[in-house]
């Protein structure tokens, strides 16, 4: 016990007690007590505040406070000063209660000696101090604890305390959410993960629904409530891991892109051009290895061909923040310089300002561009649209023709993407994608396309090719020719082809074409009509199957010769020949042949006209011609023959060589007869002339007929006698009067009589009979001559027809024809009946009433 001065406040109302106490305290050896008395509580409290005291000694019973109240009030007023209560009587309950309330101790007055009191006070102070300290410590501890708990509670990290045997002793809210489990579910359950003091590890926490959390766990060994345990703090690093993964992947990607970019990528420091990183493309192009370059300066390596270029580039960079597609020359390891297209931006790596540049070697492209620029003039004269694009289909060239075709000026096209200027119309969706795929893989595309711009549509023949080669593509060149015209022409041609096809088909003439093998390749309806074969059964067959056997060789020769001629040609002839119909008959045709080149081959086309009708008409004409010339010949003969007799006999008589009167009579009669004959002939000729020109006329008059008949027949008696042919006539005495043209009627009678006698042989007979029958006059001349064959019967009354072929007994063939005209002009009929070898009967009728006929014989004399 040290020498201490303890200041005591004594609150005692009892003076005696107070004094006593003070004397006792003054006796104390070890401790010096300084006592401040107070008579009542209020006084005491007053004195409390005045000074600092180390202890309060207070009587319980005070004038202004009793018992425990005193305790309470004092404690209240001086919580930091220990209180010892005095009690006058031995009432432990109150004293105990006082201590319970907060007093340090109690003393019973009269029961203690000084030393006891001293000790008690001293210890009360000590106790109080210790208590105070304890309280403070405890406060501090609980504060610390509270803080710790706060830390634990609020800690983002999960904190778990795990006992040595792996039981979870403590978990904080963060741990709850990490493990997605409630505290009470986890407490005192085994910790599933290995813990080792001082170790950091990663654990995969699998959650009930399959989610996984990755956590980083730091474990330390601690003492927990007296026992060694582990404190594990866990952090959810799932996101971090994912981010790390993503970053790693992107780093890989970037690295790959960087490494393998076909463009050269270089990172250099701004300040001095030190190479920080280069990619493979750079090393390949320049020839330097990475080692040779990284860490070295650009000017060391003399990479910039022109020293000032770099500075110029940096200036651009600083001014605009980036460099965009500048062209600079660079020197390769070999010393050769190449032209690069240079783009760059600034980046910071670490603390260093760096430039990342992307460059493309455009040396070749430049050369190509130069070449292209050279041929720009050529471009202009090309009549095709020429468009060039880079590899991304951005237009770099657009010539004048393109302007015309697409209606887009070069200034509006260059720089834009091709697809944005020209729409290539698809026939079906996806066609353009296919086109571009083809283009990419083949490097070449040629087809007809329909292009649409805002100015309209145009059909073009398009050819797209890569610029460049040897695996390096610099772009595309597109050549297009507007074929709208051609397309329209094709359409027109197709339509006109159809027209021609129509024409060929509907032509009446046969159109047959054959190829070089002489096989039929075209066969129109006209040919079908003429020859009978249908198109499908004749196509491909040899054309010579149409020629009759005897003409086959000649036909082949003609065709072969025509094919051999160079170039197109015609056979220059229209040939008449016969062709074999399907039914085997031969049809006369007119053929004209021509040879033409159609597409790649030669064809011979024959145009065939059926000339059957023409041939028949020609034949008829020929016959008529023949008849006419025979007629003329005969006329000549018929004229000369009577002239012979007339002249001859007249001469004989005049020359006196006919002394005999009877002979003279005979000769004169012959002369007379022959003259008449001559006259008749001449009249016939005149009649024919009139009939042909429509001037033939009959004049009917009412006449006694008998005389006409008798007179006409009379003249033939002598001829009949001469020919030794008997002549009989049967004419009735009484005949009605009929309106007739007597002259013409006579002509007919004479004609019939003359024929009858002419065609009778010596010893034959001729009969002329006239009768009235059925209101008609019927005249018949019958002879027993050679007769007329059936074939001749139908032609008897035709013009120029002579019953016997080949120079019969004279006659012009006109007689019967004219007779027919005359009789029919009277309204009558004329006909013949005959039997070969037996004789003929020629008959005619005349209507008695004089009606009928047309009076002028003007009929169709070609009947």
């Amino acid at each position, binding site marked *: 016990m040290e020498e201490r001065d303890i200041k005591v406040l004594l609150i005692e109302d009892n003076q005696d007690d107070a004094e006593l106490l003070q004397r006792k305290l003054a006796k104390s050896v070890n401790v010096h007590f300084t006592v401040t008395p107070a008579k009542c509580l209020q006084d005491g409290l007053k004195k409390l505040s005045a000074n600092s005291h180390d202890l309060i000694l207070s009587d319980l019973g005070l004038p202004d406070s009793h018992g425990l109240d005193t305790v309470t009030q004092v404690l209240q007023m001086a919580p930091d000063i220990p209180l010892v209560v005095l009690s006058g009587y031995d009432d432990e309950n109150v004293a105990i209660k006082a201590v319970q309330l907060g007093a340090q101790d109690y003393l019973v007055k009269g029961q203690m000696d000084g030393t006891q009191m001293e000790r008690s006070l001293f210890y009360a102070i000590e106790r109080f101090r210790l208590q105070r300290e304890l309280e403070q410590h405890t406060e501090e501890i609980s504060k610390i604890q509270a803080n710790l708990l706060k830390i634990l509670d609020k800690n983002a990290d999960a904190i778990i305390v795990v006992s040595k045997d792996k039981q979870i002793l403590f978990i904080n809210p963060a741990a709850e959410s990490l493990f997605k489990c409630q505290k009470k579910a986890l407490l005192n359950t085994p910790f599933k993960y290995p813990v080792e003091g001082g170790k950091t590890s990663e654990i995969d926490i699998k959650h009930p629904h399959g989610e996984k959390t990755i956590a980083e766990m730091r474990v330390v060994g601690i003492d927990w409530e007296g026992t060694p345990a582990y404190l594990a703090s866990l952090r959810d690093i799932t996101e971090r891991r994912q981010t790390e993964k993503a970053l790693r992947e992107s780093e890989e990607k970037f690295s790959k892109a960087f490494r393998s970019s076909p463009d050269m990528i270089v990172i250099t420091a701004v300040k001095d051009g030190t190479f920080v990183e280069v990619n493979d493309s750079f090393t390949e192009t320049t020839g330097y290895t990475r080692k040779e370059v990284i860490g070295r300066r650009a000017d060391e390596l003399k990479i910039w061909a022109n020293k000032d270029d770099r500075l110029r580039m940096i200036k651009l960079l600083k001014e605009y923040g980036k460099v965009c597609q500048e062209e600079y020359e660079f020197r390769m390891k070999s010393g050769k310089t190449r032209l690069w297209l240079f783009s760059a931006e600034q980046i910071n790596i670490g603390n260093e300002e760096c430039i990342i540049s992307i460059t493309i070697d455009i040396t070749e492209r430049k050369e190509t561009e130069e070449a292209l620029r050279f041929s720009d003039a050529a471009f202009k004269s090309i009549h095709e649209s020429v468009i060039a694009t880079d590899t991304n289909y951005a237009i770099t060239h657009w010539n004048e023709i393109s302007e015309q075709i697409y209606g887009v000026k070069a200034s509006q096209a260059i720089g834009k993407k091709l697809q944005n200027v020209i729409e290539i119309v698809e026939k079906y969706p996806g066609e353009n994608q296919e086109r571009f795929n083809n283009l990419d893989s083949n490097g070449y595309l040629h087809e007809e396309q329909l292009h649409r711009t805002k100015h309209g549509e145009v059909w073009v023949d398009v050819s797209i090719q890569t610029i460049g080669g040897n695996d390096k593509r610099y772009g595309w060149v597109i050549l297009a020719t507007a074929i709208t015209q051609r397309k329209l022409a094709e359409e027109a041609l197709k339509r006109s082809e159809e027209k021609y096809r129509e024409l060929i088909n509907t032509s009446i003439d046969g159109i047959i074409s054959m190829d070089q093998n002489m096989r039929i390749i075209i066969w129109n309806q006209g040919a079908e009509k003429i020859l009978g074969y249908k198109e499908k059964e004749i196509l491909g067959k040899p054309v010579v199957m149409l020629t009759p056997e005897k003409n086959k060789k000649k036909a082949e020769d003609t065709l072969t010769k025509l094919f051999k001629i160079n170039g197109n040609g015609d056979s220059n002839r229209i040939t008449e020949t016969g062709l074999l119909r399907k039914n085997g008959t031969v049809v006369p045709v007119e053929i004209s042949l021509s040879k033409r080149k159609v597409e790649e081959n030669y064809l011979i086309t024959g145009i065939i006209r059926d000339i059957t009708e023409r041939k028949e008409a020609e034949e008829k004409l020929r016959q008529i011609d023949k008849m006419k010339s025979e007629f003329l010949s005969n006329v000549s003969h018929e004229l*000369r023959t009577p002239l*012979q007799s007339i002249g001859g006999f007249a001469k004989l008589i005049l020359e006196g*060589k006919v002394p005999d009167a009877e002979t003279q009579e005979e000769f004169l009669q*012959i002369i007379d007869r*022959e003259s008449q004959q001559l006259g008749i002939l001449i009249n016939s000729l005149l009649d024919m002339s009139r009939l042909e020109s429509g001037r033939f006329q009959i004049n009917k008059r009412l006449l006694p007929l008998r005389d006409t008949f008798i007179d006409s027949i009379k003249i033939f008696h002598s001829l009949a006698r001469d020919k030794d042919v008997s002549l009989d006539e049967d004419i009735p005495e009484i005949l009605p009067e009929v309106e007739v043209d007597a002259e013409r009627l006579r002509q007919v009678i004479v004609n019939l009589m003359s024929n009858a006698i002419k065609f009778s042989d010596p010893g034959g007979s001729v009969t002329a009979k006239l009768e009235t029958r059925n209101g008609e006059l019927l005249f018949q001349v019958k002879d027993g001559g050679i007769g007329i064959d059936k074939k001749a019967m139908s032609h008897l009354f035709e013009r120029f027809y002579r019953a016997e072929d080949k120079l019969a007994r004279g006659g012009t063939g006109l007689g019967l024809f004219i007779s027919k005209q005359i009789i029919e002009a009277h309204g009558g009929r004329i006909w013949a009946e005959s039997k070969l070898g037996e004789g003929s009967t020629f008959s005619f009728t005349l209507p008695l009433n004089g009606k009928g006929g047309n009076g002028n014989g003007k009929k169709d004399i070609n009947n």
Partner: protein
Amino acid sequence: MVKKILIIEDDPATSRLVEYSLRHEGYQVLSASNGLDGIRKALTEAPDLIILDVMLPGLDGFEICHRLRSEPDTAKLPIMMFSAKAQDMDRNTGLLVGADDYLTKPAAPADIVSHVEALLAKKEQATTGQEKTSG
């Protein structure tokens, strides 16, 4: 010797004229009015000359002439064609088939006679010539 003339002619008037004219000059005249009859008479009557019309019924004069020339008996017989057919073609055909002369109608009787005489004389000479040479 009286020469015998055969006339083959179908027109009676012409036949009569020629016959009278020749008879008047002292010739003997036979006539036939058609070709077949004419050939028969030519073979059987042995005329010295034949006057042959062209336009005859059946066989025409040219045909008759040709046949006569084919028969050995009449092969050398003088034949005079007498016809109204007056074209050159007819004349040529006549000579082709072997006629010795061709007279066109109408002819004056005097002309007919003189042609006959000329033809007979020619024949005389030829025969004489032959006889002379073969003699």
